[in-house]
């Protein structure tokens, strides 16, 4: 064990202590404070679980998680099977479309669906115009709408994890079942599906936990009775009312505990269940079937249906971005570039902030992530498992927990929150595991003997890293970098707690403009602009390599 590695690990631990452990412990301590006194106790928690309202938000959130998981599973299962198993032309482009929501912010999707399916939305207006209905149908306001948008947004996680499962199954396992006499659906149920469960679970956890982290989407649909949403409202709007503030913090802690606990349990379970087989000489693409004509048509219809729903988001946002006063009309009537003029000329600060904050966060990410990945994969430094554990845990922490804890921790004592650096710092911490996982994965693929050969040739560790490892890791690292940037760029749930006048980013701008109610065109234009930027970055990733699919999957832990 070299002294350099120990030193490096100490630095990383110091950063983790300052930016993760310190603020999060602040959050927990705060949750035990009793309003109006200087005392500590579990009163807040007791109140929380005794109050029927908060209990209801808790069960609502749980219920939403179950519903969304059910919906994404039912929709995703056939989709994943089609993508993994059938040889179909144009599958790549359809796959890219279906998976697009993984990089789109959920709030952008929510806006688009309101414009299209809302009470005064395109669909209702058209139906009224054609005389098919006499008064607007409530397509989306309420739980069903929330489930709808969450399902559309989270479907890619289920599809990706399941199709990875279907692809990774050694074909001979299914062939053996065929030889043993199991055909068609029976084989699928007894062999294929059970073998996919570890993969499925990885995606299912992300989907199920989402409602515990997403406070914004329910608010957009006019719903507040969910754990993170009520926490946001209590903390942001009632911070002068100590009691509501503390109850809000308790809600954040409860959400976080649930997220972390379920995340850890599923991780344990997946690792235990992971089926290692002696696969040798199997094809990379797994078992590919030439579907019959009936199945082909059905598959295309299904894929196109989902893809169209996804396409609706950028289309609607685009329409509202290039138009003005799009109200009570199924389609815009007045076209203009005014919205963009406002964004670019009158408040370019938002764009600039977004790029600067994400960029600085990214630099932090690289400076932290590469050494961390190196320590975890390549050294035997003491405590590296714990390091990996703490970093990975950040995958599970809701953004609201990071935002609130930073707000609490970095005012007095360490007053980081008074400087704009808090914005990129919080972005960096939110996406901590991201870059690490990418670098980690690339490191694992890099044969250690390549590095050893350099050392044998006389290069020291540092030189080996720069001459051999880094150039070979570059591709994977680059994809990681861009994904990190995309996720940081659309981040809102942490930033909303920390921004001050002059630090607004594009997502915050979208939120504020929507919040004011009147400026939907500008909010739409901002969201559209963001999607365009994300899309350009995605194209860059897919050009560089790794494929859009792999890139998106690297984002499995992505939450806002």
């Amino acid at each position, binding site marked *: 064990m070299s002294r350099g590695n120990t030193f490096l690990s100490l630095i990383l631990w110091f950063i983790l202590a300052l930016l993760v452990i310190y603020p999060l412990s602040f959050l927990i301590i705060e949750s035990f404070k009793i309003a109006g006194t200087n005392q500590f106790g579990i009163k807040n928690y007791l109140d929380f679980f005794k109050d029927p309202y908060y209990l209801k938000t808790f069960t609502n959130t749980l219920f939403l998680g179950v519903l969304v998981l059910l919906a994404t599973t039912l929709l995703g299962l056939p989709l994943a099977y089609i993508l993994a198993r059938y040889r179909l032309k144009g599958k790549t482009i359809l796959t890219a479309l279906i998976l697009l929501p993984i990089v789109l912010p959920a709030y952008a999707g929510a806006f688009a669906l309101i414009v299209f399916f809302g009470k005064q939305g395109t669909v209702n207006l058209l139906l009224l115009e054609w005389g098919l209905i006499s008064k607007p149908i409530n397509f989306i306001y309420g739980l069903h709408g929330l489930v709808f948008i969450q399902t559309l947004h989270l479907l890619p996680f289920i599809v990706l994890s399941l199709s990875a499962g279907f692809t990774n199954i*050694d074909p*001979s*396992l299914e*062939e*053996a*079942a*065929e*030889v*043993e*006499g*199991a*055909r068609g659906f*029976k084989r699928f149920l*007894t*062999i294929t599906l*059970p*073998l996919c*469960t570890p993969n499925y679970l990885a995606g299912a956890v992300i989907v199920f936990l989402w409602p515990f982290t997403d406070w914004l989407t329910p608010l957009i649909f006019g719903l507040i009775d969910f754990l993170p949403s009520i926490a946001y409202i209590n903390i942001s709007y009632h911070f002068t009312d100590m009691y509501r503030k503390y109850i809000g913090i308790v809600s954040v802690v409860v959400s976080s505990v649930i997220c972390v606990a379920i995340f850890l349990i599923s991780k344990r379970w997946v690792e235990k269940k992971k*089926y*290692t*087989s*002696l*696969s*040798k*000489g*199997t094809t990379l693409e797994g078992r590919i079937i030439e579907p019959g004509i009936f199945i082909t048509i059905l598959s295309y219809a299904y894929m196109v249906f989902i893809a169209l729903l996804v396409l609706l988001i950028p289309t609607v946002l685009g329409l509202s971005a290039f138009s003005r006063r799009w109200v009570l009309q199924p389609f815009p009537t007045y076209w203009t570039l005014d919205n963009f003029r406002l964004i670019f000329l009158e408040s370019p600060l938002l764009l600039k902030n977004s790029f600067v904050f994400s960029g600085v966060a990214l630099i932090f990410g690289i400076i932290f992530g590469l050494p961390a990945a190196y320590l975890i994969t390549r050294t035997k430094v003491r405590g590296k498992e714990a390091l990996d554990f703490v970093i990975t845990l950040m995958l599970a922490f809701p953004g609201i927990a990071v935002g609130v804890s930073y707000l609490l921790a970095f005012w007095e004592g360490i007053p980081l929150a008074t400087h704009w650096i808090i914005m990129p710092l919080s972005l960096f911490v939110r996406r901590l595991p991201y870059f690490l996982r990418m670098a980690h994965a690339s490191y694992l693929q890099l044969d250690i003997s390549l590095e050893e050969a350099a050392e044998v040739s006389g290069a020291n560790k540092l030189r080996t890293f720069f001459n051999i490892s880094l150039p070979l890791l570059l591709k994977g690292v680059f994809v990681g970098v861009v994904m990190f940037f995309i996720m940081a760029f659309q981040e809102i749930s942490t930033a909303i707690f920390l921004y001050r006048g002059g630090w607004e980013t594009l997502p915050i701008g979208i939120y504020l403009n929507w919040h004011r109610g009147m400026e939907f065109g500008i909010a739409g234009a901002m969201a559209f602009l963001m999607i365009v930027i994300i899309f350009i970055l995605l194209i860059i990733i897919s050009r560089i390599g790794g494929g859009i699919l792999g890139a998106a999957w690297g984002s499995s832990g992505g939450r806002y």
Partner: protein
Amino acid sequence: MAFIEIRKLFKKFGHVIAVNNVDLEIQKGEILTLLGPSGCGKTTTLRCIAGLEKPDAGDVIIDGQPMFSQGFIPPAKREIGMVFQNYAVWPHMRVFDNVAYGLKLQKLPTATVKEKVAEILASVDLGGLGDRYPGQLSGGQQQRVALARALVRNPKVLLLDEPLSNLDAKLREKMRFEIKSLVRRMHITTVYVTHDQAEAMVISDRIAVMDKGNIVQVGSPEEIYKRPASRFVADFIGTTNFIAGEVAEILPDKGLVYVRTEFKQKLLCRVLDSAMANLHQKVQASIRPEDIEVFQEPPKGRENIFKGTIMHRAYLGNFLYLFVHVDSTLIRAQASYNVTAKEGEEIFIFLNPEKCLILP
């Protein structure tokens, strides 16, 4: 009539012909091995018998029933057992459930299933391991699970696709004999695929050697070794010396020819196929190292004695292995210890004309 008949089987993958109009008959109760280098089409042929691959043309007839030409019979309906190269033991099921899977699909009563599984597990030495998951077993044990699963339904045909290639050398040798005696005891017609010639020799009643999608020779292990039908077979099975030359003289009544090679003297060779023996024809003579006799002094009254220099001399335990330079051709020869000549010294080798074969 043969139990399995393969008729004009043809299969293409893209532009690559994997199996090229193969004809083969396999008798009831026989163990036949498809032997060849990777990519020769042996596994594809096996997978066609199983029904896991559909041929582009031709048919496989099992027990008088065509598998392809009169409507495709799926693997599930063929009453076959198969052992895969990577075993394909289902990791999410216990050993018992792996083996019982096929029986349960036949809707046999639970008691019968239990009895049959216990019986077959005992016969592959896995008694008492039924409750384990495959992940808790060694590679060799997983292999036995696969074998038990393939045999438990008492299939008409047992198909084995390189079943031993993932095992270590010691275990592999042991399993060859175990599989052979097990299959013999159960009288199951068996098709075995391997690229390992030693394995094929041990396990088979007959071997079909395949090359580039064609069967180039079918015969007992002894026939294949002693009378290879082609250069390819001679080269693939065991080790041999090839000596290129041209037919110089034919001794028609004896089935022998003189071949002019790089040696100063002409080489007397046996011709198995008289069509090979045309004057001035370019041919290859093949002789195995163990068929070469080595002498310190030239023996009297024999033909095909050549003088050479020892280039390398290796001690291999039960014999000496020599690389002998004879007039710019390198000959490998097996010799006994009484040859004391060192590297660089001269010796005499005798190429027995009966074992020096002219091959196409």
